[in-house]
């Protein structure tokens, strides 16, 4: 597979995952703001910006409506949903012949929906509807891809992009939530705290799944355990890392270069999560642990690039 094509598929997928993550976290935050007895609107926004990894260029002042609009519609802010959807579509267009027509149509429809002037005009009244449209569009794209695209190397690059972005953004979100989780530990659960904790789970579509495992007993440590270490939940970090590993193995099975360096960096992250218990993590410094996951994700990204996309000609010729 051409490096350029792999690169475009990988980024198409990362951008959509990023848009999905932003849409879900924004939706939860806007809904939490409705309960005025909890944290202040300002601190909610600060928290959201931190949970998104303090992306550069994101508007952090003004009214709630202005900030939310910027986060959804500003085409010039790399963190906005519109920016991510545009970038995903642009990448898809470069490799139009690699993805299925159905995938292209879904992505195109999502693009037109978000660019429809009526969507922006009616945003204040129906923010949640808009965000649901975005999420639906992305889910449709992923579902249709799963059933119409050939599951070869290109598909594995799509999966690689999705799960690497997911591991990174979930770690970022949890890292921002650690102080709140720690403080919630010490006090009686108030109704507002309960809402906040449920909000954290909802940001990862994890509330119902969590209840199935732990019942509706919302305990901070268990939330952390669930989102970090659960083996079966698709938005947990462990699940994402398992899938990163699987995608890389599949890429190599489908004709991609063997890359021991890449196997090592993914293996390291995998082992770190595989052989950790929540007790250990909490007795140490959870923030540092999460931060290390993020750094390792970045390293994996660089290694993918070094091996599959932007390798130097000299290195490729000496092999």
């Amino acid at each position, binding site marked *: *597979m*051409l*490096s*350029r094509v*792999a690169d475009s598929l990988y980024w198409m997928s990362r951008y959509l995952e990023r848009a999905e993550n932003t849409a879900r976290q924004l939706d939860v935050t806007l809904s939490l703001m409705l309960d005025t007895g909890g944290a202040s609107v300002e601190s909610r926004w600060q928290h959201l910006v931190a949970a998104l990894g303090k992306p550069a260029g994101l508007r952090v002042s003004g009214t709630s409506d202005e900030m939310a609009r910027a986060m959804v519609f500003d085409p010039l802010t790399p963190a906005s949903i519109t920016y991510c959807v545009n970038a995903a*579509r642009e990448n898809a*267009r*470069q490799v*139009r*012949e690699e993805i299925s*027509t159905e995938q292209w149509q879904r992505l*195109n429809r999502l*693009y*037109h929906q978000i660019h429809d002037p009526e969507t922006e005009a009616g945003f204040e009244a129906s923010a949640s509807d808009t965000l649901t449209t975005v999420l639906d569009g992305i889910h449709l794209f992923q579902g249709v891809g799963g059933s119409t695209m050939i599951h070869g*190397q290109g598909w594995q690059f799509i999966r690689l992009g999705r799960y690497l972005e997911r591991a990174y953004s979930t770690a970022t979100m949890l890292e921002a939530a650690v102080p709140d989780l720690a403080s919630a530990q010490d006090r009686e659960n108030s109704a507002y705290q309960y809402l906040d904790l449920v909000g954290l789970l909802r940001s990862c579509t994890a509330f119902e799944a969590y209840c199935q495992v732990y019942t509706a007993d919302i305990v901070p440590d268990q939330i952390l355990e669930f989102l970090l270490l659960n083996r079966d939940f698709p938005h947990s970090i462990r699940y994402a890392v398992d899938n990163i590993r699987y995608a890389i193995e599949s*890429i190599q099975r489908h*004709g*991609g*270069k063997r890359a021991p360096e890449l196997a090592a960096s993914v293996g390291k992250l995998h082992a770190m999560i595989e052989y950790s218990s929540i007790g250990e993590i909490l007795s140490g410094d959870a923030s540092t642990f999460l931060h290390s996951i993020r750094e390792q994700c970045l390293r994996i990204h660089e290694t993918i690039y070094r091996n*599959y*996309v932007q*390798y130097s*000609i000299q290195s*490729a*010729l000496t*092999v």
Partner: protein
Amino acid sequence: MPAGSSVAFDSLFGDYPLDCAYDEMRTPSGSIRPHYRALAEMLASLPAGELQRRKQSADLSFLTQGITFTVYGRDEGTERIFPYDMLPRLITATEWDRIERGLTQRITALNLFLRDIYSDAKILADKVIPSELIYSCKHYRRQMRGLDVPRNVYIAVVGSDLLRLDNGEFVVLEDNLRVPSGVSYMLTNRRVMKRTFPQLFASCGVKPIEQYPQLLLATLRALAPEGRPEPNIVLLTPGVYNSAYFEHTYLARQMGIELVEGRDLVTHDNIVYMRTTDGLKRVDVIYRRVDDDFCDPLIFRSDSALGCAGLFNAYRAGNVTITNAFGTGLADDKAVYAYVPRMIRYYLNEDPILPNVETYILGEDRDREYALANLDKLVVKAVGESGGYGMLIGPHASQQKRAEFAAAIRANPRNYIAQPTLDFSRAPCLLDGKLEPRHVDLRPYVLYGDKVQIVPGGLTRVALEKGSLVVNSSQGGGSKDTWVLE
């Protein structure tokens, strides 16, 4: 059945005019030409509305097969189908035989001409063609001088445009020797027509064209550098913003070869590689759909991002075949065109089978004087342009436009040629449920690897606008399927 007698038939033809030009389907007296009878009978036998229904199903077929071009601007990202006409254009076996022999002769001579110009230039020494005409051509590439190209084939893929004049004879209007396009429409038109008119297709006895991608692949393989028995063949595209991008993806898919852009390629030690996820992979043959100017920033335009630095040196070293060769545009220059019949006599010692259109070379004093005095009767073309750009259709142009062209011709006579306004043939097209005649040309596709091969057919381009003589797709033209009969 005496065609024309049934009610359905009359309503279909309505006031179909036979006023001028050669009609592909009907004789001047109005009767149906013999090879069109099966088509006419089928049209007459179809119940009302049936044609329209089939048209819709054909539209859908184009759309679902993705035979579309992308529209930018307001409806950004929406896909439209390429305009086409439902009714096939028929050519008899005898007519085709002449076209095939004529084009084979012509392409052979043009290739010998390129070989000659880029080596000894004997034809210039013998004063058959004036040297200044060649050396002032903007498509002449001095870098090609003395360079050996594989099998001496400069033009592996050619599309020549033919017209049928009022005497029924085909003439060559121009040759496209650089990066001719449109072959994907020829192939997809055929697929849709077979589905739309299966019985008619079977009863007419049509020669197949579906083997084109395979022949193209074999042609490219035949031109691979020595010692590369399993050549890696790629198609080089300028990218998604090129209007022919659909065709590039289509051909790459049909041939099972990689579609690459300039940024996918790197050169090292005069060898071309493509970047893959499995490391660098050597490239042996490049079927390029990028113009000369943009192929290699080190040799041609230095501001081009579409090509790959070092490509030309690798080509010169014989490590990669790039086809068509560079500098072939010289031979489809519209002024050089006027000399093709003389080339055929010079290199092959034969009379041209397919004639040229009468052409005035405005760099020559006598021709220019005549042309400037008769601008209202002539078509003037800029020699370096294609696709219907830079053209004056005298009889239809305003006084002011003619004056502008006259000034431009005086300023740079080498840049223009003039031809009489041709009354070329018209074929019936289905427009709003009625048959109406529209001007058509014919672009057969010629391949030249081991030998010259032409698939029986080509792209019939249609000037869909009433009275229009311009068939180029960039100027509102459409296409129709071309059936060469057994």
